[in-house]
Every structure is written in C-alpha cells, then in structure tokens.
C-alpha cells in the first residue's frame, strides 16, 4: 500500500454554490438509484405487474376476439383497467415495493451508512431517492399503459387511428399518463415516509389501500385526504360506481383539475417535508428486518 501525500481534493466541490452542488448531488443520486431501480432482478415484480395487462391485450389482439366490443366499449374497458387495476392496485403495489426499498432496502443491505457518510444533506438524499423512485415508477407504468393504449386501438386499424389522432384518444392518453405520474408521486411519497417511520411498512400500507379503496364512502372532508380522490377526477373517462359500494357512496363536490393537481402536489410535498425532518434524526441501526 503506497502513501501519497494527503491533499484536500474535494475542496473544489465546496467552493461551488450550494444550489449547483445540490443539483450535482441529486444527479449523482439519480444515476446510482435509477440504475438500481431499472436494472435490478429484484424489480422484475414491478415489470410483471405493469406489463401483465399488456400481455393480456396483446394476446387478445393476436388471437382475435370472439366478441369484439367496439371502440366505445373498449374505451370503457381501458378506463376500467386503468382505474381499477393500474391506479388502485398496480401503481399502488409497485410504489409500495419501489419506494419502500429506496430506504428500507439500504437498511437490509446494510449500505445506508455510505450515503450518510457522504457530504450530502440528508434532505437532498431523500429528495434524490424520491425523484429516482418517481421517475422509475412513472416510466415503467407510463410505458406499460402506453402499450395497453396502443395495442387496444391499433386493433381497430383506421378507426382506431382516427379515434386517437382526430378524436379524443390522444387527449385521453396524455391525461392517463399525467394521472400515472401524479399517482406515482402521491403513493411514492406516502410509502417513502412510511418506510422511514415503520420497520415493516406493508401492513400500514394495506391500511392505506383500504382507505384508498373505500375513500368514496367516507365523509367528504376525509375524502380529501385520499390520493385517489384527486386522481379519479383527473381521469378522462368516468367509471360507474362499484356495485357493492354504490349504496354507501358519499357524493362530494368535485374539485377542478386546477385545484386537484396542486392539491395532490401539496399533499406530496407535505409528506416529503415530513420525511426530510425524519431522516435528519435517523440513526444507523441494522437490526434484521
């Protein structure tokens, strides 16, 4: 082992302005985390979750349907799939796996201390990790739904093309992708914060799932604390109420998209601020999870 003289080599980074430094650090965190999130074998579950419906629709296209429903019926089915499968379940569980792993995974792999020992504010670390999770989730689920959408309407040939490019199709697609991104941000922040507080955030996560599923039967004030409340209103195609729940639904005044989007982003920011406070007091303790 050789012993070269010690010089303060990282001084140049100190001399840069804080904002520049924070951006550089967030980019470095994104580089590490995105590679982990997108390439790791462990995350195959998320890909399966997201692309399962794509495979089913591809099968439907390849095998041909014995009961072609028509454009409007398939538009409704797609809306059903988006709201009942993607929004309520797949994105929820996907974010649960992804965002829980962002922090808890480091604890399980006993590698969190490497981050804590870097000259990075812990708040920057949380923001970087959150952004990496949000980008990954939005990319995977957005791409998956884009494929569903494409396959669904490609099936109809010219009529499908006309629906997408001359009709409401393209607008619907953008709305769906926007809602996907918002859902990833909303659920992501919830699970990141939960993973900072609780060792096994899955059971509280199940409680969140119940809250989100049954939010429609809650009093209107409480409904506003649900991510689904805002997202549902941003979906381009409305669903008929669930048979089992329709009797108990509490009708709440709808919120305009101009309020729903900032409302959701505020909720997400509030949770992230809490997470930042929390991480500042976090200590390294690698007890078996």
């Amino acid at each position, binding site marked *: 082992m050789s012993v070269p003289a010690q010089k303060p080599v990282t001084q140049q980074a100190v001399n840069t302005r804080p904002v520049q430094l924070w951006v550089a650090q967030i980019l470095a965190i994104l580089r590490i985390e995105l590679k982990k999130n997108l390439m790791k074998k462990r995350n195959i579950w998320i890909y399966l979750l997201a692309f399962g419906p794509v495979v089913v629709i591809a*099968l439907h296209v390849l095998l041909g349907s014995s*009961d072609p429903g028509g454009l409007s019926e398939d538009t409704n089915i797609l809306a059903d799939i988006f709201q009942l499968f993607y929004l309520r379940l797949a994105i929820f*569980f996907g974010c649960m796996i992804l965002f829980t792993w962002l922090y808890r995974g480091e604890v*399980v792999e006993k590698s969190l201390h490497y981050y804590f020992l870097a000259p990075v504010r812990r708040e920057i670390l949380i923001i970087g990790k959150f952004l990496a999770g949000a980008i990954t989730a939005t990319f995977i689920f957005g791409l998956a739904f884009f494929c569903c959408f494409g396959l669904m309407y490609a099936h109809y040939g010219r009529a499908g093309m006309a629906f997408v490019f001359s009709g409401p199709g393209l607008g619907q697609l953008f709305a769906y992708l926007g809602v996907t991104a918002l859902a990833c941000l909303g659920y992501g922040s919830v699970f990141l914060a939960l993973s900072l507080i609780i060792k096994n955030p*899955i059971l509280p996560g*199940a409680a969140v*799932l119940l809250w989100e599923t049954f939010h429609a039967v809650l009093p209107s004030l409480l409904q506003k604390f649900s991510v689904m409340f805002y997202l549902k209103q941003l979906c381009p195609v409305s669903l008929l109420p669930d048979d089992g729940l329709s009797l108990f639904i509490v009708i709440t005044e709808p919120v305009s998209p101009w309020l729903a989007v900032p409302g959701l982003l505020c909720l997400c920011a509030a949770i992230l601020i809490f997470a930042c406070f929390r991480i500042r007091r976090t200590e390294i303790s690698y007890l078996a*999870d």
Partner: protein
Amino acid sequence: MAVYKRTYKAYRGAMTPGWSRFTVLSRYGFATLFDSRMFTAFTVLSFVPFLVCLVFVYVLHSATAQQVLHAQFGRDPNSIMTNYWFLSFLGVQAWMSFILTAWAAPGMVSKDFANSSVQLYLSRPLSRAEYLLGKVSVLVVLLSFTTWIPTLVLFLLHASLQGHGWGWDNLWLAFAIIVSGLMWIALISLLAMALSVLVKWRIAATALLLAIFFLLPGFSFVIEAILRTAWGSLLNLPYVVTLAWAQMFRVSAPQHFRGRFGMVPTWSAWVTVITVCVLCVWLLHSKLKAREVERG
C-alpha cells in the same frame, strides 16, 4: 511423553424425543410473536366477533334474555342460524386470520434467513420438514383458534341449546366448518411460508402475500374484461375459496360472483386451491435449504 488431560465430557443427559422436537421451534415462535403488544392486541381483537356471536346465540335461544334486552328475534332460531350464517362468520374470522398471518408468518422464516440461522437450525438433529413443521404449527394453532374452532364452538352451542337432535342432523355442517377452516389455514400458511422462503425478506414477503390476495383479483378482472372469459377469476384466490366454501356449506355462490361471462365451475376452484398448495410445497422443498450462495 505427552500428557493429555481429558476433561471434556459430552452431554449424556436425557434428550427430548425426536418426534416432538419441532415443538421447541413452536414454543419459541409463540413467544416471539406474543412479545409484540400490538400483535397480542390484534389477536385478542380477533376474538371479539366470536364473543359477540356467542352472546348473540345465547340471547337468540333465551326468551328471558330477549325480554331483558327488549330484543325480538322471532320464534325459530334456526331461521337465523343457517348454514349461511356460519359461513359468514367463518368468512369474517378468515379475514382476521389473514391479517394475523400477514403479520406473523413472513417474519418467522425470513428472519432466520436474514440472520443466517437456518444453517444453525438444520445443523442440529432437525430435518427441513421438522423445521417447517415447527414454524407452520404456530400458524396452524393460532389460525385454528381464530377460524374453525370458534365457529365450531358456536355450532355446538347452538346445537346444545336447540336440542332435539339438531346437531346430529346437521353434523355435515360441523364437518364443513372444520374442512373449510383447515383448507383456508393450509392455503394461507403455505403461501406465506413459501413466499418468505422465496424472497427471504419480511417486508417483501408481506407485500407479496397482500399482492396475491388483493392484486391478483385486479389482474383476474383484466383477463376477464379483455379476453371476455370467466376463467380469469381463477387467479382471484378469495373468490376461489368462497366458491369452494359455498359448496361445502351447501349455499349458492354470491350473486355478484356471476359476472358478465358467467362463473367458473366449483371443481376448478378446488383444483386451484390444491394447485396453489402443491406449488407452495414444491417451492418450500426447493428453496428451504441451508446454504448460502455468493455470486460474483
């Protein structure tokens, strides 16, 4: 010349018999679970519906109690205490037991993997099957006390209060309660154990268990809607189990089970349950091994 002082003496005392050795794991398993106050509180909570129903059955048969409580349940308790009533009670308890399993089971095995203690256990005179038996027995006992045992107690209470050979005439119902309960316990215990052994991380195992019971029904809906078939519902385990139970309890399946594309036959529900259990046993057999693989 060398002098060796042989002071070490191997243990020659009494040993626990081999057949009951797995109970050591069970004992420690129970102790660990009930160390958690939250878990203990939830276990107690899961008995609340039973206690309420116990009182209800008593009141149903007691005119005096009904008078005191100003309650009117009609003349014939049998019109309320139907097989559908017992099925509903078992259903509620089954969901309670599911939460208990999701809470307790993943930690039992995955913690052993995380702390590399599976190797320690299996280097003792304890086979893989006994190790698993030790862990599963905790769940079986716990879940039995929250599912079929309370339902059976209610059945016996009703039978004893009803008299006139009601119990004997409805012995099939007792059989249905026990078999349905055990089927549910086998399904969720094996699933929870297999998933824990597969992912070896408590949090992921809990998430997967929840995903199988909540997310797969969503995916089954996608299959049904896109492929226009009822067979997708075989991925919906709660649906499949309810279908099998409905047959056991001799009631018709709930109305909303008959979707746009009809309902799968009951035999397919049984085949699904058995297939899932066999798959879990296979997973446990192939993954529960005392070895560690380092990959470069």
